[in-house]
């Protein structure tokens, strides 16, 4: 019976079956609903599955352009990119952090505690331990692990940095690009948009190893590398002037100085040195004031007697006087209730413009300015480019300060003081540009420091840019003769101690060169600083068909206040060496017998 009973089919009531069916139906409905949610609406728990999948699958990479290289005019690299490994840590993957910190400390130059903190900060996914390691350190870290490989959790990632292989050489011209790759001073700053390049992007699909899947569609915007620049700066010229300037500043215990060398015919700046310089490779370790400004284009000073060259040129250009016109120099004169005297208060009698320049007579200069007249004088001061930036392609150029007759700072005596370079402030580049106008026959040129710009395979030469004709050739010929005479009278400063003769002789043996010195007072609190001067000289060489125009400025020399004694030796040395460098053959007739054996 029991067997019969067990073989009978189990009886399930209709109600139970309906309940089971209902539950199954509900479960099926839930499953379908979930399927629709996932497959159609692509969402789970409010999370967008599609977006998450895309985020994992899609790669979006910013492609960095290569910052352009800066070369000197002979092809020597001044600023370029190099790649060094930076050390990153993935804290969750680090093993034996304490030991690793002790090993890493001497290699990356950080203390153990700092490293240990970074290694154990497990809430961070990724952190940087050190940037731009030297190659030998990077190589050591790569073998630090127990298996001779890089320790777990450490990563060496190559990163670009801006490097300056010439160190402090021409640093003020080249300038600095910061760690983010943006130029902040000098050429790096002025040409940042050209040199930096344009970033590109890559949007594509990636595999689990974050490698691009090439068969998937991609959107690529190629990065555009920055332009390579070739400067007008000549490394040899630069080295000559940096060396001569440093020697002079140290010798005279000066606070600083500037030397500029320009091709007066084209406006190309061949050398630009300011002391002190700095090493742009370590710019963060120095004061921003040092690397952020280039004294040759930003700093203003009163040009002093070197401005008398401009005065003489203006007077002869407007026909106010000629080379034979004389004015009387009693040593001191009164103007508007103020006494105006020569540097030694000594009178010189009747003076022509040439003698005014040679004796550097303030009294004669102010009288020549009065003959020129206010209107003509300031018209030409403006035509020479004073009181306005020259347009040189360097960051931070200043306009200088001219008290124009229509301004509030103007007084009647301003014309008199301006005539010998006081109450007017110029930048060195502005003054040398004006002097170059006299040197090249009267054409004002725009100075520039970039000679060629190359983008990809396309190169564009920067052509000389004439601004305007300021002087007639005849006038510049007259001024040239006067300044050659000046240079002969300056020669004893250099050659006197060597030859024992303090007579006139060629300043640079074998060459006719021009020169005019100046000793400027330094404005201070509405007056002038009694404790310092600026010694300077301007000129060009050779006098005919000039190859270089030179400005030398020595700031606050302690042992000698006169530009004649501080700046002329620098000018002589620079001019002499550069004549040799430019393969200019000397004229034996222009070598004094006493100089012949002393060169």
């Amino acid at each position: 019976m029991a067997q019969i009973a067990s073989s009978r089919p189990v009886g399930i009531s209709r109600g139970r079956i309906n309940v089971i069916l209902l539950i199954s139906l509900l479960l099926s409905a839930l499953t379908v609903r979930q399927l629709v949610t996932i497959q159609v609406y692509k969402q789970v728990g409010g999370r967008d599955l599609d977006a998450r999948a895309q985020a994992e699958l899609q790669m979006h990479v910013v492609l960095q352009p290569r910052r352009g290289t800066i070369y000197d005019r002979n092809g020597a690299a001044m600023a370029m990119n190099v790649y060094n490994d930076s050390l990153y840590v993935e804290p969750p993957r680090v093993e034996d952090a304490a030991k690793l910190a002790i090993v890493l400390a001497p290699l990356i130059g950080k203390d153990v505690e700092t490293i240990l903190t970074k290694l154990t900060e497990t809430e961070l996914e990724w952190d940087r331990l050190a940037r731009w390691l030297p190659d030998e350190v990077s190589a050591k870290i790569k073998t630090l692990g127990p298996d001779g490989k890089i320790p777990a959790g450490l990563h060496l990632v190559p990163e670009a940095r801006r490097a300056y292989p010439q160190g402090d050489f021409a640093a003020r011209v080249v300038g600095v690009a910061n760690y983010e790759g943006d130029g902040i001073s000098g050429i790096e700053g002025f040409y940042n948009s050209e040199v930096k390049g344009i970033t590109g992007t890559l949007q594509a699909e990636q595999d689990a190893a974050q490698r691009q899947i090439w068969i998937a569609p991609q959107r690529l915007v190629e990065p555009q590398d920055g332009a390579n620049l070739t400067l007008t700066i000549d490394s040899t010229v630069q080295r000559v002037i940096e060396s001569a300037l440093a020697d002079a500043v140290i010798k005279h215990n000066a606070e600083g100085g500037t030397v500029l060398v320009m091709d007066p015919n084209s406006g190309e700046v061949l050398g630009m040195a300011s002391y002190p310089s700095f090493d742009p490779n370590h710019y963060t370790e120095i004061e921003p004031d040092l690397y952020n400004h280039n004294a040759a284009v930003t700093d203003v000073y009163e040009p002093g007697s070197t401005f008398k060259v401009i005065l003489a040129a203006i007077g002869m250009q407007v026909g106010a006087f000629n080379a034979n016109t004389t004015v009387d120099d009693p040593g001191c004169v009164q103007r508007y209730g103020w006494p105006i005297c020569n540097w030694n208060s000594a009178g010189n009698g009747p003076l022509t413009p040439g003698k005014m320049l040679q004796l550097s007579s303030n009294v004669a200069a102010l009288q020549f300015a009065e003959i020129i007249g206010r209107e003509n004088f300031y018209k030409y001061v403006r035509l020479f480019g004073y009181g306005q930036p020259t347009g040189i392609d360097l960051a931070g150029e200043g306009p200088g300060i001219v008290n124009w007759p229509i301004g509030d700072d103007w007084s009647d005596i301003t014309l008199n003081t301006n005539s010998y370079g006081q109450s007017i402030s110029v930048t060195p580049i502005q003054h040398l540009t004006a002097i170059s106008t006299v040197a090249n026959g009267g054409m004002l040129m725009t100075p520039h420091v970039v000679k060629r710009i190359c983008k990809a395979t396309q190169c564009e030469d920067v052509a000389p840019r004439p601004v305007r004709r300021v002087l007639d050739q005849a006038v510049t010929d007259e001024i040239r003769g006067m300044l050659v005479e000046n240079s002969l009278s300056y020669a004893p400063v250099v050659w006197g101690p060597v030859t024992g003769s303090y007579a006139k002789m060629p300043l640079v043996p074998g060459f006719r060169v021009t020169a005019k010195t100046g000793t400027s007072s330094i404005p201070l609190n509405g007056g002038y600083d009694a404790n310092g001067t600026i010694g300077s000289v301007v000129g060009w060489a050779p006098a005919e068909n000039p190859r270089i125009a030179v400005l030398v400025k020595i700031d606050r020399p302690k042992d000698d206040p006169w530009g004649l004694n501080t700046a002329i030796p620098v000018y002589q040395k620079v001019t002499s060496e550069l004549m040799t460098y430019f393969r200019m053959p000397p004229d034996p007739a222009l070598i004094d017998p006493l100089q012949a054996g002393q060169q």
Partner: protein
Amino acid sequence: MAMTGCPMGEALPLQHARERRVQHPKYFRLGAPGLIAGSVITVCLLSLLYLAQTGRVATRGYVLQELQADRVGLLREAEQFEYRIAAANRLDSVEARATALGLRRAAPAQLRYATIELPPGPVVAQR
């Protein structure tokens, strides 16, 4: 039938050929199952071809990626060398090496200049 009253031994060759031609299509006639099987085989073949091609492109892509990485590495290495060359060519380094070799700067009086008169017109270098 196509066979006429001609005796067997006398059947013309042209006639035989015509008969065979009439019967030919039966070898190419496909029913529904044949069409389906043919389509499946064709799709399979095309898929295999496509897979093979995409696989090859993907592999080439990875190779290309590796080559690009190599190129970047070599360019970086070249820049390192360029940097070292530029640093070694610093004029003060050059002067120091020259001085160490016993060389010294020539005095102006030691220099000799040769002036070469060039003929008028363009100058062409000649061997």
